[in-house]
């Protein structure tokens, strides 16, 4: 008789611990959901620092959300003048130092990220979520949320989310040992009721730059559709990454068609680009990175195969080395 309460207590405590963990997990995901929604539905204007590989840069962002959808302007405040303008139609990158303008069509965004609506449990298989202490960024109170990956094929994330508006104020991508790979942090941010059209105009006109427009002969297949009409196959993809988009496009009018595969684990995305190389071009091999974005390139049967993604180098390399002709 005496043991019963103890056994019961043990079971109860264990269950409680499980519930508490599950609740913390759910709470953390709730923060992420609200954060994603906030970043798409709020008006905000601010300055942030972006740090990677010993480099520190300042940038400004102005984001307007209205009945016509999102409009955004992001510009560099240090180094070469660069600007990105995005609305529901197009993304325009004006690179002052390159004297070039790249125009791509924008992809639809929902305030509710696809990653959370349908695949919450699956994200939990590859990341642990936890809520940390309250901190302060740009003078505003924010809540730490941490995502730790279960394997070395993806980065961890340490986020600080504004407690009032749920805007992401600090974001850190971390490597396998918890070391920071890339960091972004607001130094000032405001939430204006209205953002004028003037504020969303670029400083750089780009009129006399070289323009590269994404042409219109794009055929995009629905995610998960049969990709049987391709002669390519991607054999190795780390567990948890699923094909979310597949299609063929041209990056610009003069360039050959590129076959594009997009894999996502709900948080990180990896793109595989396959493009016919000009006759005689046989050498294309290497790796490079920008911030936490890694790229791997190789030649397969006269084609350039390039894998890019905000995942560790070994992930893009693994995927890139597994691309085969059927």
């Amino acid at each position: 008789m005496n043991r019963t309460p103890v056994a019961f207590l043990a079971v109860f405590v264990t269950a409680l611990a499980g519930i508490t963990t599950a609740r913390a997990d759910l709470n953390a995901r709730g923060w992420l959901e609200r954060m994603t929604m906030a970043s798409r539905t709020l008006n905000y204007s601010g300055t942030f620092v972006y740090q990677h590989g010993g480099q520190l840069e300042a940038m400004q962002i102005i984001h307007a959300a209205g009945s016509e959808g999102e409009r955004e302007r992001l510009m560099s405040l240090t180094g070469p003048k660069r600007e990105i303008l995005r609305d529901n139609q197009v993304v325009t990158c004006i690179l002052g130092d390159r004297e070039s303008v790249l125009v791509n069509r924008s992809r639809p965004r929902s305030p509710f990220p696809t990653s959370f609506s349908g695949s919450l449990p699956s994200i939990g298989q590859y990341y642990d979520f936890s809520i940390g202490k309250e901190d302060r960024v740009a003078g505003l109170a924010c809540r730490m949320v941490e995502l730790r990956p279960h394997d070395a094929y993806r980065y961890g994330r340490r986020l600080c989310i504004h407690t009032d508006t749920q805007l992401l104020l600090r974001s850190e991508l971390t490597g396998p040992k918890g070391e920071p790979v890339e960091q972004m942090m607001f130094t000032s941010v405001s939430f204006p009721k209205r953002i004028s059209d003037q504020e969303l105009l670029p400083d750089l006109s780009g009129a006399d730059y070289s323009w590269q427009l994404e042409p219109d002969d794009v055929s995009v297949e629905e995610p998960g559709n049969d990709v049987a009409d391709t002669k390519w196959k991607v054999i190795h993809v780390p567990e948890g990454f699923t094909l979310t988009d597949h299609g063929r496009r041209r990056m610009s009018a003069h360039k050959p068609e590129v076959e594009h595969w997009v894999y996502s684990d709900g948080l990180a995305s990896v793109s595989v680009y396959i493009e016919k190389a000009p006759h005689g071009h046989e050498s294309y091999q290497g790796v490079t990175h920008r911030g936490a974005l890694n790229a791997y390139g190789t030649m397969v049967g006269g084609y350039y195969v390039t894998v890019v993604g905000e995942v560790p180098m070994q992930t893009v390399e693994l995927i890139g080395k597994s691309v085969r002709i059927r």
Partner: protein
Amino acid sequence: MMNDEIREQLSALADDELNELERPLLLGRLQRDTALRECLGRYQLIGEVMRGAGASAGMGIARRVQHALADDAPAAVSQAPTQNWWKPLAGLAVAASVALVAVLAVTSGRQGGGAGAPMIAITDTAPPVTQVSEQRWDRIEPQVEKRLSGYLVNHSEYAASRGVLGVMPYARVVSDTRQR
């Protein structure tokens, strides 16, 4: 609002008949004017119709616009005869070439026997971590760099639309890649 004059200019640009004086002004306006930029989206439909209507030479309206825009490029990027991201054999850092060899050795060992198999999810949770001292973006040959930049911008839109960290993908595009 787009007036008839602008429409005519767009049409002339599409036909490659816009004069040298008007062209930069229109390109500038194209950049600033939302309505005009929305036209880019509509080019998809127009382009398809044009192609469907027998533009067999592959020079639909959208493509002609792109040709017109590309012709405005101030200087063409030099054509590189070969496309090495790395030039380990051409006198770049020895450490880099050693690192590359190490990467290739490790990964080729891991990839053995993969050909012909159906898509397999990798489940080992502790893959070998390779230390790679990569070549930075801006040391890469111009043609390769240009291709990578295109991919970077393209990928960023997918990453931003699917992921949760909206600003980060584009911060990488805006980021300074010069040597320091």
